[in-house]
Structure formats: structure tokens, C-alpha cells
């Protein structure tokens, strides 16, 4: 039956294993704690973008409000640990459950909307959340932020150490990828894709489309919440601006640039955008002695170009390139075979 899976969906383990190898080997080459921080953030953000990829690429629903769910996770974790000295792990679970409930209720209400209006509604939710964390300053520290969030520790292992935390975060990313892949590689994933192709036909086949949209919406919200908790414990300080619409937009861009129809695309997009940010900054500073300003222009330009010329994202092109290389290899091998045969 595993064969059936491969026939239906292609191989899972090959890309999975390659990513795993990359993640395991990277620390050998990365000596600076700065790159490590970037890699950790890529892991954390990947969690959200994987959820968004499920929501956007598979269920076809847009969200410009996931920074809010990211924030709920971060603040539940932050407040419970920093103000009430609760256990970080329990806080994380509370955050997840709370996010699930909130997003389920919100999802039921807003997922009836489509396209632009869904985008607007999710933005509104993000703004309301933002104002609430500013307003509930007794708990959240308001605009001055919440300080003193402890770092995690796991069985005596201090995850405050960036290297340990790096492995921990990426371990979670792999678990989430596996979980999401399992969903995609089942009839649930199939029905999500079918919603994308024809919502009305899916409905006539007996699928309660609305229900599945809401479930995927809250699942992606839960991923975001988990990411938020990890973020809070990693940075140890949280303030409202990190959870504003601008971050939601950034997440959307990551997913779209990477390739919205693939979970690998989400991870790839997250990594590319994060490094792109650093790279533009580096080039700007080193060669042109400018900072900040250029970044945003280049950034906008890249969004436009990718959307215009590579609407399926980078992962699509990588896949095609891979196929090309493979076909060339096969041809090459055949040629070699032929020449050796001739030689013999």
C-alpha cells in the first residue's frame, strides 16, 4: 500500500531526508550565532508558512491575519510564564487550545467570505487583536512589551543555548511537515485540492466544504500559535508591533514566493525571504552605503516579478529544473552505456 501512496503522490522521504540532512549539517558550517538566529527564525516562521500553504495552496483561502494567531501563541506563553511563572510547556498547550477555539469561531464566521473580502476580514481581525494586546496592558505589558520570558528547557537540557534550540525548532518543523504531509497524502488532502479546482463539484460529492475550510483555517492558526510560543521563548521579549498586519503580509509573501501549492515551497519561500532580507541589507551597506531604504524597494520588486513571471513560486521551477537534470542524466547515462558497449 505504501506503493499506492507513492503512485498517488510521489515520494515523500526523498525531499524530507534531503532537508533533514541540510538542517543537520548546517551548524557544522555556520559559526556565527547570527546565522544561527536567522536559521532558527526561518524554522519558526516556516511553521506558520506551512500552515498558510495548507490554507492558501490547498484549501484556497487567503489570510492576512495570521500574525494575530502567532501573537496569541506568543502572548499566552509569554504572559503565563513571565507574569505567572507557569510551566512553558503547559502554557504552550494552553496557547494552542485557546488559538484553536478562537480560530474555529472566527473561521466559522468569516470563511463564508471570498477573495478580497476574506482578506479584509482577516486584516480586521489582526488589527482588533493588535489593539487588544495594546489595551490589556495589565497582562500583556501593552506597548512597552513583555519582558523576562524564560527560555525553554527540556529534560535538563537548556534550550536557551541557540544550537540546542535550533535543533529543537527544526525537530518541531519536521514533525509539523510530517503531520501536514500525512494530511495532504490522504483523502483529506485530495478533497482540499478538489475544493481549489471546483468547490461546487466537491460539494456535490458529499463534502461539507465549509467545515473543511474552517478545520484547515484553525489548523493553520494552531501552527502559527505554536510558532508564536517558540518565538516568545526564543527572543524572550515580545511587543505588539511584531504581530501587526505587516507581519501577516510578510508571511503571505513568503508562501507565495516559495510556491503556494507545496509545503516544501513554504519552507523554501521562508528561507529565501529571510536571507534575501539580510542579503539586500548586506549588499546595500557594503557596496552602496545605504541602509533600509533600498531593501523595501527591492523587496516590492521581487514580489511583483515573482508573481508576474513565476506565479507557482520557486519550488515549481526547482521541480522542473530537477526533472530536466534527471532527464539529461538519463540521456547521458544511455549515451555512456552506448559508447562503452561500442568500445567493448
Amino acid at each position, binding site marked *: 500500500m505504501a506503493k499506492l501512496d507513492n503512485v498517488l503522490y510521489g515520494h515523500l522521504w526523498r525531499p524530507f531526508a534531503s532537508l533533514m540532512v541540510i538542517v543537520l549539517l548546517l551548524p557544522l558550517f555556520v559559526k556565527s550565532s547570527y546565522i544561527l538566529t536567522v536559521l532558527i527564525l526561518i524554522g519558526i516562521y516556516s511553521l506558520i508558512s506551512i500552515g498558510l500553504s495548507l490554507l492558501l495552496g490547498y484549501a484556497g483561502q487567503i489570510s492576512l491575519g495570521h500574525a494575530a494567531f502567532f501573537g496569541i501563541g506568543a502572548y499566552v506563553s509569554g504572559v503565563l510564564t513571565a507574569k505567572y511563572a507557569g510551566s512553558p510547556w503547559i502554557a504552550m498547550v494552553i496557547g494552542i487550545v485557546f488559538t484553536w477555539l478562537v480560530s474555529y469561531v472566527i473561521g466559522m464566521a468569516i470563511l463564508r467570505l471570498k477573495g478580497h473580502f476574506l482578506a479584509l476580514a482577516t486584516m480586521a481581525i489582526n488589527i482588533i487583536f493588535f489593539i487588544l494586546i495594546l489595551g490589556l496592558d495589565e497582562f500583556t505589558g501593552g506597548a512597552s512589551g513583555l519582558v523576562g520570558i524564560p527560555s525553554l528547557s527540556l529534560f535538563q537540557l537548556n534550550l536557551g543555548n541557540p544550537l540546542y534550540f535550533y535543533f529543537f525548532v527544526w525537530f518541531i518543523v519536521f514533525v509539523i511537515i510530517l503531520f501536514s504531509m500525512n494530511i495532504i497524502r490522504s483523502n483529506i488532502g485530495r478533497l482540499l485540492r478538489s475544493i481549489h479546482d471546483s468547490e461546487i463539484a466537491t460539494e456535490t460529492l458529499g463534502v461539507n466544504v465549509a467545515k473543511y475550510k474552517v478545520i484547515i483555517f484553525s489548523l493553520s492558526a494552531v501552527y502559527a500559535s505554536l510558532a508564536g510560543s517558540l518565538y516568545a521563548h526564543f527572543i524572550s521579549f515580545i511587543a505588539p508591533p511584531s504581530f501587526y498586519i505587516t507581519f501577516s503580509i510578510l508571511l503571505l509573501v513568503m508562501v507565495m514566493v516559495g510556491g503556494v501549492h507545496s509545503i516544501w515551497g513554504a519552507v523554501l519561500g521562508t528561507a*529565501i525571504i529571510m536571507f534575501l532580507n539580510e542579503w539586500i541589507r548586506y549588499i546595500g551597506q557594503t557596496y552602496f552605503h545605504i541602509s533600509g531604504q533600498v531593501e523595501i524597494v527591492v523587496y516590492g520588486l521581487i514580489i511583483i516579478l515573482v508573481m508576474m513571471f513565476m506565479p507557482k513560486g*520557486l519550488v515549481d521551477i526547482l521541480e522542473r529544473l530537477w526533472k530536466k537534470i534527471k532527464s539529461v542524466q538519463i540521456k547521458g547515462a544511455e549515451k555512456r552505456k552506448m559508447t562503452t558497449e561500442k568500445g567493448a
Partner: protein
Amino acid sequence: MKKAVKGRMLLALLIVFLFGIAGCGSQSTTQTDNKGKDQGKVVKIGVIVAETGPASTLGHAQANTVKLIQKELDQQGPINGTKIQLIMHDYETNDTKAVIAMDKLISEGVVAVVGATQTSTTMAILPKAVQANIPLMATAPVSTDKENVYMLAHSSSTIISQVVDYLVKHNIKKVAWLNARDAFGVIGLPAFKELAKQHDIEIVAHEEFDATASDMTVQLTNIRKKNPEAVIVWSRTPGAGIVARNFKSLGFTIPMFQSTAAANKGFIEQVQGNSDNIMVVGSKLSVVDQLPESDQKKRILAFRDAYVKEFGEEPDLFAAHAYDGIQLIIEAVKAGKTTAKDIQNFLKNELKEYPAISGTLDLTNPLKGAKADGLTLLRIENNQWKYNQ
């Protein structure tokens, strides 16, 4: 054809990406190589400011200051054979980016970090500085007990005491408080509440506004209901200026006090012709020409003139904080201290007190912030700052 284009595009992107990783990773090494060859020892000082984003109204001048000092340093040549290099990062008013920048600075081996523009960001990067045990020269008011933090800004109570002094002197007892709902806006009120209690001043109204809002008439109307004798506003520009204009157009005649975040040229431009009752807690920097002759005046004048010459605009208090922070480290280097630990020892145990642009700094008690001697209440006359004393 189309495929070929896409393939090439992808190739370009891949190269870009690889260069990216390489670039980010190797920055420190290449730079040390370049500079190391001809100048011997290099000391790096990190600076984290908000050159762009909403807090750029404050961070912009700080970034300029860094550029100015670097230029001066390059002209001067090495100090005691040591070359000082300033590495500045723009965190775009984004705390996460500031943390990344902090990590980057630490991995590049800076001996101290100056920043960040905002209080909340400073709190975000503070744990990293503590962990790496390098001095953090905080240019925004922070409250912490960590000992390698040096607060260069005035604490909120130092600033607000300027206003309270005035209130006491003029026997004003009922005050309305208005602040922006951002990290800068919210830190003033707790300090004021404490001082107000001591001096029997009643806070009759408290309103807040969104930092990016375009109209504060509603808040001011709410305040008017309570008949205060003065209004204190704690906000950055442009919010600060919009409040002032709404204040004038609503016909208020009571005095309005604004914070140090309004003590800049942008604010004056905003309130042109609407500045009758406005007083701003500002640096003596803004009115240095009107000051009586003193060492302080000379110091401030030197900084201001250099800044004006370079950028054609006036520096503000936030620029001064950044300037002070970097100068302190330069002082330490001048004394031959080139490691983070030595610098801290030097500051606390040898320098002890330092006459900075923004006010005297007591380095044995570095969390107190600059003293009030650099501050004054300013008025605006003919679109110019006017020294009040």
C-alpha cells in the same frame, strides 16, 4: 523560449541566494582582513537604530550621527594605533530584526552596542547583550537591573520633572494627560503619576491615541470636559504635531507640554503658527546659541556645528544620546581599553562621571540616565526654539 527564460531566472536567483548566505556569513572575516592589513588593531562598535519605519522620526538623526562620527574617526586616523569601526544596523522599527542585528554584531565581535532607538527594542536586545557580557549603551529610557546597561537617555522622571517644576512654580494643580499608544508614549505616565502625587497634582483626564492616527480632536474634546489647567502630551512626531494643531484649532488657551520626542525640527515645522501655548521638554542642544557661555555650551556647539555642516539640518536629543554613547566607548579606547570587559571597568571605575551632550552622566550608577542639566523647557518663537530660563 519561455522555459529558457525561466531557467535563467532561476539560475540567477540561486546564485543570488548562495551569495546571500556567503555574504551574510563572511562579512566579519572579509572586513577584518581588509582593515587588519594596514591599520593593525580594530575595535568595532555596534549601533542599532531605526533608520526607517515608524520610529525613524527619532532614529534618522541617530543614523546621521553615526555616519558623522565615523567620518571624523576616519579623518583622525587610528587612536593609539587602534582603528575604531562603527557598524550600524537599521532595524526598520522591527524588534525581531533588531535581535537578528544584535546577534550579527555579537558574532562580528563588537566591544559595545549603542541603541536601540525605542525602549521596547532596547528591551528586546538587552538579554543578548547581558548574555554576551558587552556594554549596551541604551539611547532610550529603559528600566532594568542588569549591570552592563548604560542608560544615556534621560529617565522619564528626569524629563517629566522639568514639567512638574513648571507646574509647581505656576501653581497648576489639574492636569490632563495624553499619550500615543506606542512604546514611547506609554512610559511617561507612570513616572508622572509618582511625581504628581508628591506635589499634589491631580490627573483629571487620561486619553490615548493611535500613533499613526490623523486626528485627535475626540481625545482633546474628552479632555476639555474635565477642565484641566494644563495638558501634557507624550508622543513622537507626527502625532505630537497633529495634537498641537488640533489643540490650537479647538481653541484651548491652557499650556500644553510636550516630551523630548517633540523637541525636533519636524515638530516646529508641523506646528507653524499654532505654537502659542506649547512648551517642549528639550535639550539645551536645541537652543545652544542662546545659552550663557560655558564648557557645556562649547561641547554642544561643537557637535551641533559639525552635524549641521554635514547634513544641513539640526541634530536633536536622540542624536545626542547616540553621540554620547559612541563617545564614551571612544574615551575608553583612548585610555587603551579595547575589550568589552576593560571598557566596562574603565567606565565604572575610572571615568565615573562624564559631561555628555545630553547631560552629565554618572557612570557609577549607569541606570539612572543622564542628569537634568542638559534639559530645559523650550518655547517656540518665530518657528525657532526659545530658551526659557
